[in-house]
């Protein structure tokens, strides 16, 4: 049987789900409760494999088609404005990955923890986008769009 690594099976849904799990673990950490680092580590890895913009001129991008637009919307939600340059956007993603790595590895809480929790919740919203709430009544399609499940 042919299988590629974790990246082969990553979908937007899977990444969104990891993001929601990560938000929960970060909140548990903030409350001083026992928390798991695996979702944070997996989310950082998943973002590296699918959503990493090129860093600097020689950087290699892993950004999958269809991933930039929702991440750019996420930037705007968190910063209240659109990124003025691609470098700004790249820094934003790179910083989130670094912070996830930091909490997963050192189990230390960065000052930006509330922002990181918010990043994870918004990432889930963006990657597992669904029809409007009104659409739940008279539902004619899956709650989670098929697109999120397969790419």
């Amino acid at each position, binding site marked *: 049987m*042919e299988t590629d690594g974790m990246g082969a099976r990553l979908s937007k849904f*899977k990444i969104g789900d990891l993001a929601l799990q990560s938000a929960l673990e970060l909140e548990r950490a903030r409350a001083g409760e026992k928390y798991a680092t695996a979702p944070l580590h997996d989310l950082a890895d998943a973002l590296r494999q699918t959503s990493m913009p090129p860093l600097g001129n020689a950087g290699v991008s*892993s950004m999958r088609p269809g991933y930039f637009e929702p991440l750019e919307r996420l930037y705007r939600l968190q910063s209240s404005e659109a*990124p003025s340059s691609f470098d700004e956007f790249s820094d934003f993603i790179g910083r989130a990955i670094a912070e996830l790595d930091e909490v997963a590895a050192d189990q230390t809480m960065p000052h930006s923890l509330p922002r990181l929790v918010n990043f994870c*919740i918004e990432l889930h919203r963006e990657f597992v986008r669904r029809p409007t709430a009104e659409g739940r009544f008279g539902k004619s399609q899956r709650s989670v769009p098929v697109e999120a499940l397969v790419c």
Partner: protein
Amino acid sequence: MANHNEVSLLRLSSARRRIDAFLDQIDDLATSSFPHNDGKKALEIIRLQFVGMRGRLDMPVGAAEALIDQTCLHVADQVSDYTEVLGFILRSTNVRNPFELHFALKKLIEHAIGPDAKLLISSEWAFLPFTYPMSIEMLPDFVLIGSPAPESGNVLIAPLAGHEIGHSAWRRYGLFNEYSAIVAQTVADELAAHPKIEEALLHQEQLEALGARIIRDRCGKHAIHQLEEVFCDLFGLYLFGASYIFAYDYLLAPGGYDRNLGYPSDARRMDILREAALKIGIKIDDTVTRRWNVASCRAEARNTASIVDAVAERIVPTMRYDLFARLSKLHVLLPDDKTVSAVQSAFERGEPYAKSASLAEIISAGWLYLRKKGGMAADNQREQYKVLGDLMLKSIEVAEYLERSASDA
């Protein structure tokens, strides 16, 4: 008036009760009589996932309201989607389903996808050709094949399952990853070669600073969806030969309607299938593949469509070559013309085929026989059409018996 903590408590309790009711439903279904183990296995996996999801509702004190609400929404969506899947699993136990296909299809899937692949055959109360539910996140090793309920016993449309198996293969082979970079680069090349289109798109969408990247991203997203759909068509063609095209024609001809950019136009899909059939020596009826409508594209989508189609067009030949090479390496056999003729001769004698033949060969022979008889839809042919279905199913059973006997020996 309730305070925020009370609202959080209520929402979390509702989500827990929703999951509990869902788990009770699974436990009820598990007592059903399953013709194959895969249905039961699917229920076990889904159950485990929902038990895990329930644990995620144990929020720490003072958890952000946004996290509580988003988690509750997530639960609602999952219960909603997997309720449909439970219905599918329940219907898979219905005796109206063609269980005779299970052995042959499962073997095909194990061959093409992997030995751990699992299969559920069921029916849908929608006249959709095997489009639901594609790859399901909780059941990545399962192929779910559903035919429209009125057609649940119609073996002739079984080849469309090839397209559905293709979606599982696309994921299992890791092709989204494999084609991401090449799609991104090809989109950039096409836009660079057509600056006026890029300019028009930027103007039309009124995008901000990174607008050009958003245009690229959108084109790339549609292009990779198109590639997946084409991949699935080619996969179905390789597995089922000409019968894939006949089955496709039965449910979807003559195509047309509004264009969805995630798919090539219907007419183009047929061109791609015709070209591919030629490459691997599958004989097809040109008139069937050429008489298709071109789906119309909304005016505002035309510029995007021109880039997306050009990108897919450039990548399809390589993808087709790689897929056929991969299937050949996996020893997935193309239908053999001589065997198809032999099976057809048996049907003409009113007998099932008594030797070993593949599912694709039996169904291809069925289609050829049906076409030779002018479609078998006249009032005085209804019985004959029913007999053809029985002959195909019996031939499939004979092939299964011969194969099982050979492996026992």
